[in-house]
């Protein structure tokens, strides 16, 4: 019973922190320089790993799908498959998971260390609301940067796919890029670039929540870091399922 109460308490605290990170947007003070710092850390800092991963995901997709399309003599369809899979599903999800691994953990350990060294209490003692100074800038930065990172992952994935298909299938640049771009419709882009907004919100709020609730010194920081990655990754995958369902519905009825 006590365990259940604690879990409900966690859900409530997380929901309140998430809500506060949004309501803080409507009242000053604002910490613009912190938002820019975080955009640099989360966005620019994650770029190399996202681009590299996207490239190899695109490349391996061609290797896997090419064999099937060769059987039907439709190798040009490889570009369609890579493009659709990357933009609609793999780009947002892989980017979300990568940034969760890199930044949800980073946020949790940074805020957790600040909690155990009483820097968060010191901030409150000096009249600063930690949710405004620490949480909201990280949430804004992640929500803004994740769609851009996803776009970069999609693009580098297509480049990876193109390079491998040109070597293994002898597919020309015009054939690949024309098909890769033409297969995409507005709803695909909507789906691919709106999911990261939600994923960004999830991973940043989970990271902040885990960091701010650290108890028990450095061991607690380590635990919070692990939990931040695990929880945000699982939430992203679960949210992805429901978002896909909603977006496929919207694609059929609205767009």
């Amino acid at each position, binding site marked *: 019973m006590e365990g259940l109460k604690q879990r409900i308490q966690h859900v409530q605290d997380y929901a309140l922190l998430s809500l506060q990170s949004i309501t803080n947007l409507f009242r000053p003070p604002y910490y613009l320089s912190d938002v820019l710092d975080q955009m640099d850390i989360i966005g620019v800092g994650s770029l190399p790993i996202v681009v590299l991963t996207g490239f190899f995901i695109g490349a391996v997709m061609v290797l896997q799908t090419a064999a099937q399309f060769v059987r039907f003599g439709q190798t040009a369809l490889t570009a369609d498959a890579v493009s659709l899979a990357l933009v609609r599903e793999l780009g947002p999800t892989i980017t979300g998971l990568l940034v969760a691994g890199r930044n949800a953990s980073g946020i949790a350990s940074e805020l957790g260390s600040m909690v155990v*060294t009483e820097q968060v209490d010191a901030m409150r003692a000096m009249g*600063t609301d930690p949710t405004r100074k620490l949480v909201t800038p990280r949430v804004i930065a992640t929500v803004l940067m994740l769609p851009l990172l996803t776009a970069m992952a999609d693009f580098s994935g297509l480049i990876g796919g193109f390079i491998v298909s040109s070597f293994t299938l002898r597919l020309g640049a015009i054939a690949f890029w024309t098909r890769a771009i033409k297969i995409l419709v507005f709803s695909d882009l909507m789906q691919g670039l709106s999911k990261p907004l939600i994923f960004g919100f999830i991973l940043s709020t989970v990271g902040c929540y885990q960091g701010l609730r650290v108890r028990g010194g450095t061991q607690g920081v380590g635990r919070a870091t692990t939990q931040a990655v695990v929880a945000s990754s699982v939430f992203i995958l679960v949210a992805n399922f429901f978002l896909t369902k909603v977006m496929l519905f919207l694609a059929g009825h609205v767009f």
Partner: protein
Amino acid sequence: MTTLDTASERVLSFEDVRIGFGQGDVLTGLTFSVAARETKVLIGESGTGKSLALKLAAGLLRPDSGSVQLLGRDVGQMSEQELLVFRGQIGFVFQEGALFDSLSVADNVAYRLREERVDDEEIEQRVRESLRFVEMEHAIDKLPSELSGGMRRRVSIARALVSRPPVVLYDSPTAGLDPVTSQTIITLILRLRDTQGVTSLLATHRLQDAFGLANYRFDGDTGRVVPAPHSTNGSRAAGAATNFVVLRGGKAYFEGSPQTIADSEDEYLQRFLL
């Protein structure tokens, strides 16, 4: 800002304060008060709730029951938004300094002034003034990681006094420091008390610090620490009094002047004196 009319006015008072964290109460009915310009020293073994009492006084924690009154306000009943503004009147020196490790010494000290949107020229002047007070002006551009433990505490004191608060809370300011550095910190606290007349609550487990505060004063004319004259009741005659509260079992076991504790034959108090 609240003004203090008489020296005897209560600036801070705890009334039957209880707080616990799952495994029973840590404070089980703490009651004591601090008058204007008084220095109250909270003494107790580790885990008796000294730091908790300070955090309750600043509204960083809320009591499970009882009331904590500071400058005429019940801090336990105030919203976090009200408290954020109210804490402008409190300086808090944390146990390990709690300096922001990504900011330089200057930015740490200037933090509160920047939050209050004070203009840059005044910030510069007040930061230098505060750092000069703690004799750390030379380290203005350093990062906290480049400072020793004692230097970090001094910067922390500078950060607490930069907004000229009427009340300063010190959480074990000499814990983990060598005797010489501890003495430097105590001298700073004496200086702040005797030159600026702040009301303070200081938690410590080191009785020598407590007696140092009670038996000495800072002479502003000579810039030296000199023995304080004593009144008949044992507390300092001139200026603010220094009194002790000994915590035991989550309550105030003893509250009174240094002389009374020194003369006491109580076994538990004697343990502290040895």
